[in-house]
C-alpha cells in the first residue's frame, strides 16, 4: 500500500507501525505505518475524515491506539493522557482552541506543567517565560491579561506559543492557519522553521496545498483512515498530490447533475444573518442542488441557520414556494419551517438531529407526523418506513433498532428518511456526509439527486470542496458573510472556488 518510506528506520524519531483506531463501527485509522525524522517538517494531509487528526491525537496522548504501536526514538510508547505525551517531548497545537477563557495568558501557557517554588505556583517565572515565548514569535501581549478578553486570532497565536514553551522534540500542528490572518501565518511559519533548525520533528496537519509545498520536507497522505504514501515533498506536484488525496474518480462518486431546473423553490432577498454582515440574495429552483461554499467560518453557516429559522436573520426576506405555487415566508422559526414543509439537516446529527436512544422507525415517523395535531394518536405507518429503509439501503437489523447503534452513514440516511417521509419539497442540509464512509457517501448523493429529480430543491453547506464540485448545480462562494461568486457546478474546480473564497475576486488565480 505504501509507495515508499522516506527515511531509514535508524533516523526515525517517530515511527507508526500498523496503528489502528476504531470509533464505534467506523475505522478512523487503519493500519497506518510510516516514520518521521528529526529536524524535518512532515506534512500529514488528506481529505476531511481521512484520519489525520485521529492519528496525530494518538501521538499526542488524546486517543490510545486499538492496535499497532508508536515508537519514539526506537522505543515503543503508549500515552494514557496528554501529560504523559508531553513528558516524552510531544507537544501539540490542537485545532480546537484549548485556551481557557478565565485563566490569564501566563496561566494558560503553563497549565498542566506549572513551575513551582516551595510547592506554590511560581507566578513570576510563569510571567517571565510567557513573555519570552511570546516575544520569540514576535507578539507582545501582557501575560496577565485574561485570555477570554483576547481576539480570536490572538488566542490562536497564544496557543502556538503555548506549544513552543514546552521543552519538546516533537511538535504537532493541527490545521494551525485556519484561524490566523496573514501576518499571524508568517509568524507561525518562522517559528516552525526555527523548530526544524533546532532538530525537532514537526508534524504539520493541513489540506492546504500551498502551505505544504512551501513548508514541508516530507508529505504523508492518508485516505479514509489508510496510509496512501509518504514521499519527499520535492518529488510531488500539485496534481499528483491531489490525486493521491482524492484517490478516485469524482465521476464515480457523484450522480449526474440536474438536466432541467423548475420554478423557484426558495428566494432569499437581502437577508442579513448577523449584525455587521452584508445582506445576501439568492434563489434555489426546483430540481437544483445549490451549495454555499467558502473557508470555514465565513458566514455560510449563519446564512443557512437564518433560512432554517434557528437563528432568525436581522433583516431581509426569505420566501419559499410549495408545489401548489403558494408562497410563504421562511426563517421566522424552525417549527414554522418544518410545519410548512422545509426539512433541516443539522451538521451535528447526534445532538441536533436524531434521538439516539429511539428506534429507526420512531426517528423517521417524526417527519410523517409533522402535520398531525398534538393530541392525535401517533400511528406509525410501518409499511412506508420499511419501503423507505429499503429504498435508502439502511443497513440495520430491523426498524426497531436504536439509532445509536447504527454507523454514521446509516444514521444520516435515517435523518434523510425523516424528511423524505414527510414529503418536504425543500431541504436545507449542513454537511450532508460528515462522518460517513465512502460507500454510504455515494448512496447519499444518489438519494439527494433522486429527491431533486422528483421536484425537490436543496440548499447545502459542506466543508468538503469536492462535495460541492461533484454534487452541486450551482455553488455560491461566501466570504465575510457576502456572496462573492456564483459558479456553475459543472465548471467548478478547487481553484475557481478557493480564489474568490480567499481573495473575494475571481480575477487573479491563486498563487500556487
Amino acid at each position, binding site marked *: 500500500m505504501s509507495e515508499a518510506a522516506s527515511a531509514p528506520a535508524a533516523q526515525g524519531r517517530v515511527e507508526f507501525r500498523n496503528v489502528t483506531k476504531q470509533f464505534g463501527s467506523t475505522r478512523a485509522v487503519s493500519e497506518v505505518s510510516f516514520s518521521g525524522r528529526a529536524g524535518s517538517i512532515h506534512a500529514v494531509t488528506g481529505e476531511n475524515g481521512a484520519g489525520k487528526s485521529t492519528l496525530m491525537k494518538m501521538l499526542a496522548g*488524546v486517543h490510545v491506539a486499538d492496535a499497532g504501536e508508536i515508537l519514539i526514538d526506537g522505543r515503543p510508547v503508549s500515552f494514557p*493522557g*496528554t*501529560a504523559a505525551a*508531553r513528558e516524552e517531548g510531544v507537544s*501539540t497545537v*490542537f485545532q*480546537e*482552541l*484549548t*485556551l*481557557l*477563557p*478565565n*485563566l*490569564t495568558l501566563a*496561566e*494558560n501557557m503553563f*497549565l*498542566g*506543567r*506549572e513551575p*513551582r517554588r516551595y*510547592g*506554590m*505556583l511560581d507566578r513570576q517565572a510563569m510571567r517571565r517565560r510567557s513573555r519570552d515565548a511570546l516575544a520569540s514569535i514576535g507578539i507582545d501581549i501582557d501575560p496577565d*491579561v*485574561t*485570555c*477570554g*478578553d483576547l481576539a480570536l486570532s490572538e488566542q490562536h497565536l497564544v496557543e502556538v506559543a503555548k506549544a513552543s514553551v514546552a521543552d519538546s522534540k516533537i511538535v504537532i500542528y493541527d490545521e494551525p492557519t485556519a484561524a490566523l490572518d496573514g501576518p499571524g501565518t508568517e509568524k507561525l511559519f518562522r517559528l516552525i522553521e526555527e523548530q526544524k533548525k533546532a532538530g525537532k520533528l514537526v508534524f504539520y496537519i493541513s489540506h492546504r496545498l500551498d502551505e505544504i509545498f512551501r513548508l514541508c520536507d516530507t508529505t504523508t497522505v492518508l485516505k479514509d483512515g489508510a496510509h496512501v504514501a509518504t514521499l519527499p515533498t520535492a518529488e510531488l506536484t500539485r496534481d499528483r498530490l491531489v490525486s493521491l488525496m482524492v484517490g478516485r474518480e469524482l465521476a464515480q462518486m457523484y450522480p449526474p447533475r440536474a438536466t432541467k431546473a423548475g420554478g423557484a423553490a426558495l428566494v432569499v432577498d437581502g437577508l442579513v444573518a448577523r449584525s455587521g454582515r452584508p445582506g445576501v440574495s439568492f434563489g434555489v429552483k426546483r430540481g437544483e442542488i445549490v451549495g454555499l461554499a467558502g473557508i470555514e467560518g465565513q458566514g455560510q453557516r449563519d446564512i443557512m441557520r437564518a433560512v432554517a429559522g434557528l437563528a432568525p436573520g436581522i433583516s431581509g426576506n426569505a420566501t419559499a414556494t410549495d408545489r401548489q405555487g403558494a408562497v410563504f415566508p421562511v426563517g421566522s422559526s424552525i417549527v414554522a419551517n418544518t410545519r410548512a414543509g422545509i426539512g433541516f439537516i443539522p451538521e451535528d446529527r447526534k445532538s441536533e438531529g436524531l434521538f439516539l436512544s429511539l428506534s429507526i422507525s420512531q426517528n423517521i415517523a417524526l417527519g410523517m407526523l409533522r402535520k398531525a395535531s398534538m393530541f392525535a394518536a401517533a400511528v406509525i405507518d410501518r409499511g412506508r418506513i420499511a419501503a423507505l429503509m429499503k429504498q435508502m439501503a439502511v443497513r440495520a437489523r430491523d426498524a426497531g433498532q436504536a439509532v445509536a447503534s447504527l454507523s454514521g452513514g446509516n444514521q444520516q440516511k435515517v435523518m434523510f428518511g425523516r424528511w423524505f417521509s414527510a414529503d418536504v419539497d425543500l431541504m436545507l442540509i449542513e454537511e450532508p456526509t460528515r462522518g460517513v464512509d465512502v460507500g454510504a457517501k455515494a448512496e447519499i448523493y444518489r438519494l439527494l439527486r433522486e429527491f431533486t429529480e422528483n421536484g425537490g430543491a436543496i440548499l447545502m453547506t459542506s466543508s468538503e470542496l469536492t462535495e460541492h464540485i461533484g454534487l452541486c448545480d450551482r455553488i455560491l462562494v461566501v466570504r465575510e458573510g457576502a456572496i462573492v461568486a456564483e459558479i456553475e457546478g459543472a465548471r467548478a474546480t478547487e481553484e475557481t472556488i478557493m480564489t474568490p473564497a480567499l481573495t473575494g475576486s475571481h480575477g487573479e488565480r491563486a498563487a500556487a
Partner: protein
Amino acid sequence: MIAILPRRMGRTGLGVVSIGLPILLFVGLSLQADNFLQAQNIANINSQITTLLIVALGQLFVALIGGIDISVGSVVSLSSTLLVMVDPALAVPAALLAGAVIGLANGVGVAIFGVHPLIMTLAMATFVQGLALLMMSGSGGTVPEALIWMAKTSFGGVPVSFLWCLAAVAVTAVLLNRTRFGLHVYAIGAGEQSAAFSGVRIASTRIACYVICSLAGSMAAIYLTGRIASGDPTMGRPFSLDSVTAIALGGVLLSGGIGGVWAALLGTLTLGLITNGMNLTGVSPFFREAITGVLLLVAVSLHRRKVIGI
C-alpha cells in the same frame, strides 16, 4: 452595568452587585436600626456568619468546577452528632473523617461514575441526614470543653469567631490562588476537555473539591457545636441552600470557572446582613427563609453574563 467593570475583574466574579449590595445594606441598616452599629451587634453578625462562611467557602470549590453539593448541610448535622457521641478525645477526628468519607463518596460518584452532582449529593444528603437522626433523635449531649472554648473565647477583645473566618479565608485563598490545584479547579470549570488536553487530571481534582466541601461542613459543625454547646442532628438543615445562595449573591458562576474568595465572603456577608437586619427590625425568621429562595433566583439572574467568554 457590566461594561463599566474593569477588565481586570477576570475570574473573581466580583461586580457592581456583589460589591454594592453589602455596602448598601450596611449603610441602610446603620441609618434604619439604632443598635446595628453597636459592637455587640457587629460581634453577633460575625459569629452568626462564621458557620455559613466556612460552608460557603467549601461550596465555592464545588461550584468552581461546575458542580453543586446539596449534602453539605447533612454533613454539618452528622458531624455535630458525632462530636457529642464519641469519646471526647476522638470527637474532632471522627467528625473530620466522616466529612472526608462523605466527600470522597460524592466525588467518586460524580467524577468516576458520572452521576449528576445534584442527584449524587441529594441522595447523599438524605442518607446522611437519616444516619444523624438514627444516632441521635434530638439535640443535646455533652460537648467537649475544648470545643466550647474554641468557639467562645476571645483574644484581647478579638472574638475567636473572627479568627475562624480569617483562617478559613486564608486557607481557601492560598489553595485557589497559590497552588496548581487551584489553577486546575478554574481550568476544569471553564472547559474540561481543554483542561484535559493540557494535562490536567480531571477526576482527582473534582474528587478533591467534593472532599474539601464536606470537610468544610465538618469544620463548620465543630465551630457551631461548640458555640451552642450542644449536639444537634438537624443543625445543618439551612446550610446547603444558604451556602449556594451566598456564593451566588457574591457573583460566583454556578456553572463553573468564575468566582473566588472575595465573592464567597461578600455573598455570605450580604446574606448575614439581611438576616441581622430582619432580626433588628423584628421581621419573622420564617420570612428570612422565604426570602432566601427569592434571593437565589435574583442572584443567579443578576450575575448571568458573559464576562470573558464562559
